[in-house]
């Protein structure tokens, strides 16, 4: 293949040869519809779906201005949603770009936007079982993200314990938008279960329904605004998780932040460090600089990559955020704002490219 990550490398030794060369940390498979998971639901909830004519998970209040939010060429035969056909997915993402491992991120963290926590828990389990059968078992390059009901941390932890030890499950996935900041102890059972099962806590763009708006100013009018503002929710979550001492409680816990941008990270690190020097007695469990906790416990994915007019500014951001240890490639296939591994990046030093395209993800997910 001709993907960037497959450019010749100098002097490969035995260990290097075993290294994965391209890992996509955000690849969205999809269902063809709720009918896919009906067989996996308990009878009560299956009947609930039929009786209520439940058709889809809560969807964004923003009509997605481009392609309905999908890459138009990724729709299987012009019918069905992009990402819902395993063969096309495989061909268009894995084979075309030479992706060695794709972490499937679905569309399903939206279960957490439902008001009914019991329904969310049942749907989560059904979606996870369906994912294992319909996707993970279909190609050894797939890894799965568990859907969990964030409305009910105890139920979420139970689901994590049910499937978290499977080698093809590498993380849970939930939205950056939340009902309260994720560092608050309401969510601790989820983080504890992730740590117990060695799963990454994957936080993805999103947050509607019962979640708070992505900005403290409220709901913006346009998809353009919503998409751009989402990084604010990520920042709030990082700050909360650090300040609340989540990583003192769960030192083995790591977060992967997807589709929320990354250029804001140096700002958050600097400002948090600065304020911590004066205000640390409020959170005296923080005995090291917050930025050190961030670099240790958070990874960010690249898509949608920041595109400054001058490439060197992006490289400067990479340096500021220690991208060699914090940044992981993601494509967001098959969505409209997909990033090509060949074209999305400026020329990178070879070592940094390896770190971003594969090694950071390999280390984080144990691939």
């Amino acid at each position, binding site marked *: 293949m001709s993907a960037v990550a497959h450019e010749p490398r100098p002097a490969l030794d035995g260990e290097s040869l075993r290294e994965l060369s391209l890992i996509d940390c955000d690849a969205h498979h999809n269902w063809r519809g709720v009918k896919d998971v009906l067989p996996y639901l308990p009878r009560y909830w299956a009947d609930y779906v039929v009786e209520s004519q439940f058709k889809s998970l809560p969807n964004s209040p923003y009509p997605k201005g481009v392609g309905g939010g999908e890459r138009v060429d990724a729709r299987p035969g012009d019918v069905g949603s992009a990402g819902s056909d395993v063969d096309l997915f495989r061909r268009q993402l894995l084979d075309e770009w030479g992706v060695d491992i794709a972490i499937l991120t679905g569309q399903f963290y939206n279960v957490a936007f439902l008001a009914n926590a019991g329904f969310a828990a049942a749907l989560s389990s059904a979606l996870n079982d369906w994912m294992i059968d319909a996707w993970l078992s279909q190609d050894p390059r797939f890894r799965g993200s568990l859907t969990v009901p964030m409305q009910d941390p105890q139920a979420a932890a139970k689901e994590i314990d049910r499937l978290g030890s499977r080698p093809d499950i590498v993380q849970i996935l939930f939205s950056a938008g939340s009902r309260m900041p994720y560092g608050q102890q309401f969510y601790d059972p989820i983080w504890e279960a992730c740590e117990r099962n060695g799963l990454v806590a994957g936080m993805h763009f999103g947050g509607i329904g019962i979640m708070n708006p992505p900005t403290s100013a409220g709901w913006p009018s346009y998809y353009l605004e919503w998409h751009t503002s989402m990084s604010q929710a990520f920042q709030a979550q990082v700050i909360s998780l650090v300040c*609340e*001492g*989540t990583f*003192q*409680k769960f030192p083995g816990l790591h977060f992967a932040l997807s589709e929320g941008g990354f250029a804001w990270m140096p700002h958050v690190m600097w400002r948090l460090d600065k304020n*911590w*020097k*004066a*205000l*640390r*007695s409020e*959170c*005296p*469990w923080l005995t090291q*600089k917050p930025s050190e906790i961030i670099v240790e416990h958070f990874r960010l994915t690249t898509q949608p990559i920041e595109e400054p007019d001058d490439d060197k500014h992006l490289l400067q951001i990479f340096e500021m955020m220690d991208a060699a240890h914090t940044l992981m490639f993601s494509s967001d296939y098959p969505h409209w704002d997909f990033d090509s591994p060949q074209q999305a990046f400026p020329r990178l030093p070879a070592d940094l490219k390896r770190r971003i395209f594969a090694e950071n993800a390999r280390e984080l997910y144990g691939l």
Partner: protein
Amino acid sequence: MASNAATKRHVVARVGDIPPGERLITDVAGRSIGVFNVDGRFYALRNSCPHQGGPLCLGRTVGLVLATRPGEISYTREGEILRCPWHGWEFDLATGRSVFDPNRTRVKSYPVEVEELQAETYTVEIERDRVVVILT
């Protein structure tokens, strides 16, 4: 103290002038220095915060706030931590070391154990009922 330090010895007050819990901010050889009495122990710190040069010794003295885990807070050594009146950075009166980064962020100070002092510190002695700051 060694006798050759005599020229660096500066009487700043009678002991009784600085009761426990109080401080004296005084000019010593052109430098503004705060002399603190913590339960009969005297400490001296340079009256300038290493952060942005705020008048450190005008700040409140507080306790040392630590935590074994999130939410479990301890409050000890009351009166032994000085907070800069500008931005609240905390410094240990006994050592001049900041709480947040004791190894790298410090203010010039006088430890009780003079012998352990290295260069670039101030020293304080009680001599004939007088408080003496020794520039080092």
